């Protein structure tokens, strides 16, 4: 564990502004990772034969997932800038 990691852990433990940002960024990363899996699942389903209604539904779900992932990544990056 490097000095920076130790300092981040200490910041988190003391719940300072930086530590809080680091914890939040980590939480967002975890949620984004789940959304990426979800998106891949929908994309795989889209490859299978389906009715127009089902295809439309899956395409919409993928679109929503992608928007959420983008928002999450942007927010996590911004939070990480605060910790640097």
């Amino acid at each position, binding site marked *: 564990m490097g000095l920076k990691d130790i300092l981040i852990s200490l910041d988190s433990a003391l719940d300072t502004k930086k530590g809080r940002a680091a914890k*939040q960024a980590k*939480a967002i990363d*975890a949620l984004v990772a789940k*959304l990426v899996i979800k998106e891949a699942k929908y994309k795989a389903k889209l490859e299978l034969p389906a009715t127009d209604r089902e295809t439309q539904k899956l395409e919409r779900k993928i*679109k*929503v997932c992608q928007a*959420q992932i983008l928002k*999450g990544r942007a927010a996590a990056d911004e939070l990480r800038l605060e910790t640097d």
Partner: protein
Amino acid sequence: MIKRIVLPAILAVLAFGFWISPDFKEIAAGVAIFLFGMIFLEDGFRAFTGGVLEKLLAKTTNKLWKAISFGIASTTVMQSSSLVSVITISFLSSGLIGLAAGIGIIFGANLGTTTGAWLIAGFGLKVKISAYAMPMLVFGVILVFQKSRNLKGIGYVLAGLGLLFLGIHYMKEGFEAFRETIDLTQFAVGGYAGLFLFAAIGIAATVIMQSSHATLVIIITALSVGQITYENALALAIGANVGTTITAIIGAMSANHQGKRLAGAHLIFNLITGLIAIAFIWQIIWAVDWISATVGIANDNYTLKLAVFHTIFNLIGVIVMAPFVGTLVSFLERALPAPAVSIVETQFLNDSVKDFPETLLSAVRNEVFHLYDNAYRIIAHGINVHRQTIESDVILEDELKSNKEIIRENVSQEYTRSIKSLHSAIIDFSGNANLKLNADYAGHLYDLRRASQRIVQAVKDVEHLQKNIDHFGTSKNKAIRNEYNNIRINVARILRLFEQLRNNDPDVDVFDLDDNKLSAKEGRNATLRNIDTMIRKGQISAQMATSLMNDLSYSKSIINDLTRAAKILMSERNTDLMEGQNIIGLEDEDIASLSETDAA
């Protein structure tokens, strides 16, 4: 009437005692300081834990042995089985843990409280503890005046411990001086009569002081200076164990039926344990002597032997009673039946959950779910859909388009009966509680109030929607009937998603609420784009179009309100994850821009 007599009588007896004996005054002052220390200690732990204790409690009580271990550990650390009992009652009342887990904690707390006897007998009487008390008091008081909640809590704990030690010191001094003037051993009573008499005195002393610890300290200090006999001290300790249940009983008075059941379990456990101890007193004394000899406790060290006795008889109680926890739960459920569930009265909001932030949030959350249950029925019936349909796997589009049944639900009347008063109670309760919470908890509570408000608003909007749903949803005009069926389908979808999330359906998560919102918005936009064409083709009249536009707006509000409420109620309890979900979740403008992309 009794209260009016008892308090002046106690004060008069004490005043008389102080007048005739300065030693008695010292002992009484010691007890008072000790009890004051207990109050400080409890306040300190309440402030210091700030929810940590409750979080731990919720996580570690899924098995009986874990619940018992938690009871032992928390009572050992806090030195107050009363505080652990009261927290457990509040947990039960708020619905965070079950009765069996609560009983396990109480069993453990009974064992944990025996560590107090060890501390007093092994450490308190041998060391000049007043030397430790003074610095603790000084450091404690300095910390109490700090702004930080944690430092303040530590200050209360330190000051509490300092006062406990100081109280023990005064009691010890008082009894030592007392010995020179009066010999209490002359009142010693032998045999079973003595056992029952002194057990009754132990019960009375603990009920008055509401602390078995205080009684135990008096017993041990009196025993250490030879003011009572060893056998009578054992009986007093048994009585103190039974008397301590009074705190739980008082705590349960403001709790719901579950809290009362737990207090009942506590009383039954301590009574049975006490009876076992009295019935097998000679065998237990033999066991105490044997254990004491084995671990090297001197034969005449009666104070430590009392600690051994206290531990043994509580351990026997736990061993005897643990296999019957299930039977005890069934008995208590029969003896103290749950009141009939009222849809119009609050189920979880009561005074016993107010003191601890986690239980308070859990109780308010459960009450908002209770409100939602009522709202769910009204909204579903308001759009002529049965809840079974929503909770089934049927395709809503197919089912709702073919079903023309009208469910006669008086939404306005139901709103007044089962929504308005519950919502008012939630607002009133959380408004009063909010003053005591730190910013994080106050924020969570504020969100729950908003969820409640959104649910209420959704019911109000259904009231506006219902008349036209009944009218146009069964119309012979296919075009308008289809449009109103689409409104029903979209509202039914959010109700279904809400239920799936609530039941932890693995196929959905809170992010699906955004997808549902987008789907509803796209449907609404398609209808709005099509309205002019329908009027031009003569499929619907201008009046129908106006109604449809108004009702699309109501359906949008219902979906948005229920989506917001679901996000609050179903979000993660972990603050960081919850905030993450809020950040990632799509706002109205995000949904609008996704919808525009699609239309383009």
